[in-house]
């Protein structure tokens, strides 16, 4: 079963960067444009990891995370927050919300991959396609 990763960000640019970063790996990327869509996608798809933006219209990342943690079947889903704010207060606030990790924008694709790799086991597509050894 490929890893399922849900990217919740109102910026298509960030979702595209996430998709490009994960393209070589055997995983399914699900996208949502705000927290409300993100919660619906999480309930439907049961992702192995959620990459969550903070500032979004309709429902922001903090509200989505709070509701996620109140939903029994989703509360254990690991979350990596993507935030444009690097300040100490913001980082502490995010840590208190119970996220697995966070990444401050701007970021390099290698940094994103490193954070994701600490939470889920990414397997390259070529490796995944090889037949199992006898």
């Amino acid at each position, binding site marked *: 079963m490929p890893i399922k990763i849900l990217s919740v960000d109102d910026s298509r640019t960030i979702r595209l*960067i996430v998709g490009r970063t994960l393209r070589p790996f055997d995983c399914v990327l699900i996208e949502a444009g705000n927290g409300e869509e993100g919660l619906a996608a999480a309930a439907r798809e049961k992702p192995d990891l959620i990459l969550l933006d903070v500032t979004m219209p309709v429902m922001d990342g903090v509200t989505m995370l709070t509701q996620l943690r109140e939903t029994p079947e989703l509360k254990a889903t690991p979350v990596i927050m993507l935030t444009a704010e690097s300040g100490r207060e913001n980082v502490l606030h995010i840590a208190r919300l119970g996220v697995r990790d966070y990444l401050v924008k701007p970021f390099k694709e290698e940094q994103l991959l490193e954070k994701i790799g600490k939470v889920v086991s990414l397997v390259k597509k070529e490796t995944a396609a090889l037949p199992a050894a006898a």
Partner: protein
Amino acid sequence: MSIQTSAINVQKFLGEHVQSVFETMLSMKAVPVSINLSPHYPERVTGSVGLGGENVTGAIYLHMTAAFARLAASSLLGLPPEELTNESEINDVIGELTNMVAGGFKSHLNDHDLPCAISTPAIIRGTAYEIEPPQGVQRESVLFNCANECITVEVHLRIN
């Protein structure tokens, strides 16, 4: 609250932070330039993000030519400029760059005991417009040279 915008050192912070954002996301060098002229943008794209807190309000604007906006989007999305036919793709990239600049500035304000929230980005496009701050709002601008184009980062700030 007696903090003045001079204490926040907007020029120095933005001079460094914008370079970092452009280098990381676009692999482009944005070099601060010190001239007292307002650059002329024949076709302008402006990304804007609002800032609002108990003791501080304002906005950040990133002004650039439409040609540079296309170049930046091309670099970030990894597509040739001629393949970027959809203006909304370019707008999204410029909005995200503005969001990153504003997010860093928000953290900088927070470090000066001026906590605030930032809005989602908006884009303005046109040929001849000026953004005038209301009375009592201080305006500071930092100019950058990037790929032989002029980028202006403008901050409007009112500190109570």
